[in-house]
C-alpha cells in the first residue's frame, strides 16, 4: 500500500496516500475563535478556506509552532475541506500491513492513522 509517513515527537505515523489530496508547506493559518482546541484555524487553499486540524494536539496532546518543515496535508474527498497540520517532513513510500492499526515501512513499525476518525476526534477533543 502507498503511504505518507512522518514523525511526531519521535513516534512514526503513516496514513494511506489515497486519503490525502495534496501536501504543501504550511501557509498562514487564520484563527477561528471558539473552535475546538484541536482545530488550529483556517488556511487558504485553491481559493477556499480549509480547516486545519492540529495533528500533534490530537496524537500527543501537545501543539507545535509552525516551522520551515511544517506541512498541511489536505484530505481527499469527502473530507476535502480539512487538512492536517504536520510540523515535520512528510515522506511517501510503500508499506505493508502489520498488526491492526500499524504498518511496516522500511522495516519500521508505524501507527496507521484513520483520517475520518481523526476529523471526528478533533470536534470532540477538549
Amino acid at each position, binding site marked *: 500500500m502507498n503511504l505518507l509517513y512522518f514523525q511526531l515527537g519521535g513516534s512514526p505515523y503513516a496514513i494511506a496516500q489515497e486519503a490525502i489530496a495534496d501536501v504543501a508547506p504550511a501557509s498562514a493559518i487564520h484563527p*477561528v475563535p471558539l*473552535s475546538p482546541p484541536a482545530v488550529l484555524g*483556517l488556511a487558504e487553499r485553491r*481559493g477556499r*478556506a480549509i480547516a486545519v486540524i492540529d495533528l500533534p494536539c490530537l496524537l500527543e496532546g501537545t501543539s507545535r509552532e509552525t516551522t520551515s518543515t511544517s506541512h498541511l496535508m489536505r484530505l481527499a474527498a469527502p473530507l476535502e*475541506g480539512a487538512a492536517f497540520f504536520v510540523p515535520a517532513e512528510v515522506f511517501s513510500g510503500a508499506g505493508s500491513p502489520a498488526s491492526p492499526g500499524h504498518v511496516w515501512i522500511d522495516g519500521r513499525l508505524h501507527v496507521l492513522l484513520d483520517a475520518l476518525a481523526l476529523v471526528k476526534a478533533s470536534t470532540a477533543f477538549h
Partner: protein
Amino acid sequence: MDLSSYLELFVAEAREHIGAAAELASSVDVKPAGQDRLRDLFRHVHSVKGMAASMGFGAMSSLAHDAESLMDLVRQGRLAPSHPTRQVLCDALACLERMVDRAESKQPVDDADRGTVQEQLRGLLRGGGSAEAPAGTPDPGGSARPAGATAATGPAGCVKISMIVRRDRAFPSVRAAVVVGQLGKLGRLVRIDPPMAALRTGRFDGRLQVALVSDLTLRALAAKVAALDDVDNFTLVPTDRPPEKAAPVGSKASLRVRADRLDALIEDVLELMASAGRVESGIAGSLPGSPVARDAESVRLLARRAYDGLVEMRLVPFEIAAHRVRRAADELARKLGKQVSVAVEGEDVRIDRSLLERLVDPLLHMVRNAIDHGIEKPELRRAANKPEDGRLLVHVERHAAMLSIVVSDDGAGLDPRRLKQTAIERGMLTPSEAVRLDDADALMLITTPGFSTLEETTEVSGRGVGMDVVRSAVEGSGGRLRIESRLGRGTRFLLQLPPTVALVQAYVVRANGIAFAVPLATLMRMAPMDDQATTWRDGRRFWNLGSEEVPVWALRDVLDLPGEPNGVSHGMALIGKSAGGSTVGFEVDEVVGRREIVVRPLPLPLTGLSGYSGAAVLDDASIVLVLDPANLPLG
C-alpha cells in the same frame, strides 16, 4: 443502443415535467383560464410519454399515454374535471414519479400501483369517450386563443403578429425575448418591436409585435403561436408590408451541463480569482498605477464576473420543491381524513440545486409529521374552537448569508413534559437530567434516534425514525434545527442553513487584530462607541438608540479573542437583532471597509460552529470569518 448514459438526463427532465404537471393538475378546470393549464398539463405529460418511450420504459410511456388521453377528453369538454378525475390524474403523476425514482436507482421501472391507477384511468376514458384522440382534434390550446387568421391553405407570407406576453410571471422581458426566439423558428423575422436590444435591458411593457415571413399556413401559424407558453393573447394579420431591415435574433437555446462539471469549473475560477488577487496585490505594491497593474485588476474583475455567472447557473427556485410539498401534504391529509390548507411562501427564493436536493426529503418528512401528528381531525379542531381546516405553512427566506426555512402548523403542539416522560421511560434520560432540561431542549428530544411518543406507530411516521434524520441532514449541511411549540396552538420547525455559496455585501471589521466580515443585511446600524452615545449600568455598556438602550457586548469578550485591541480610542458598535428578536450590539475595534464576499459554509470539523455563517477568502487570499450576529453566544 446503450441508453444508460442518457438516464441522468431523462430523470432530471422527467422530474421537471412531472413536477410541473402535478402543480397544474391540482387545479385544472374547464373555465377559459383553465384551458391554458390543460394545454400545459397535456404538454408536460406528453413530454414524459415521449421520453419514456425513447428510453424503452414501455409501462411508463403507456401510463403517460392514458393520462394524456384523459386530459384530452377534459379539454374537449367530454369529461368533467371533477374531483375523482383530478384525483386519478394526480395518482397517475405520483405513480410516474415513483417510476422515475426507480429508473434512477436502476430498479425495474414498473410500479406496484401502476396497474390499478391505469385501470382507473381507462375506466374514466371508457366512460367519457375513446382513449384515442378523435381525428381532426385541434392542437391542445389551439381553441383557447383568439386567432385572427383565416383558414388559408397556402403559405402565410408576411404576417404581423401582435401579442401580449404574460407579465404575471417573473422576468417578462426575458420571456418576450424567448418568444421572439420561438417565433424565429417559424419563419424569418423582419421586424421586432420593441427591439431585442431594449428587451435585453429589461424595458418591456408586455406588448410585443413582430413581422414574420413564413412558409406555414395561417392556420398552422396561429396554432403554433397559440401554443407558446408565455403568450397571453395575440392577433395575426397578413400584411403586404415589404420586409424591413432584418432584426438580429439572439439564440436562447439552453444547454444541460452536469453539475459536477460545473462545480469543477467553479473551483477553477475560484482559484483563478485568488491567484489574480495575489498578482494584483503584488503588482500594486511594486508598480502602482502602471498599465500592468490595471491589467491585473481587469483580470481579477473578469474572473469575478465569470464566477458570479457560474454560481448563478447553480441556483434554482424553491418552487421546484414546493409542488412536492403540496402534493405530499394533500395526499396525506386526504388519507388521514384531515382538512389542511397548505401554503408555501418564498417559492422564488433561489437555492443551490444540490442543497435543495438534500433538503427535499427532510422537508417532506416535517410536512408529513405536521399533518400526521400535529394537525387534528376536523371534529377535534371544532371541539378546540379552531377552524376545521388546519394550516400548514412552509416559509422560505434568504437573510444575509443564511437560508431560513420554517415549517409551521396550527395543530396540537408538543408537550415538553410528555416528551421528557417518554425519554425517561425509554432510558434516554434520568429523572434528574429531565428536570434540568428546559423546554427548548425537551422539544429537541424528538430528534433523538429511536424516539417516539406514539403508543402505536403509524404508517406515515411515529416509527421513531425521521426527525433524527432531518436533524442530521440539516446539521450535515452546516445548518441548525430549532423547534418551537405551544401546546394546543401548533409547532414550528426552524431550519437555518448556510447557502452552498453566496455573494454577500459585508463590512470587514477587526477586533484584537483579527478580521471578520459582517453581512450588511444582519445590521440595523453602525455607530461609534463614544462616551456621549453610551452609558454603563451594572457592568454592561449600553448604546443609546433614541428611547431604547441597546446592550453592547465587546466582540473580543464574546469570542474570547486573544491579543489586545489596536489602541483606537473608540470602537464601533454593530447593532443588529439577536436570535430571540431583541436588539443587541457588538463592539469592534475598527471597520476596515465594505466588500462583496463569497461566503462558503465552514468546512468539517467546524460545521455548525455557533456565531458564524461561514468563511470567505478575500481578493488578497486572506481569510475572514463571516459573523452571524443573531447567533453569537452571549454569556
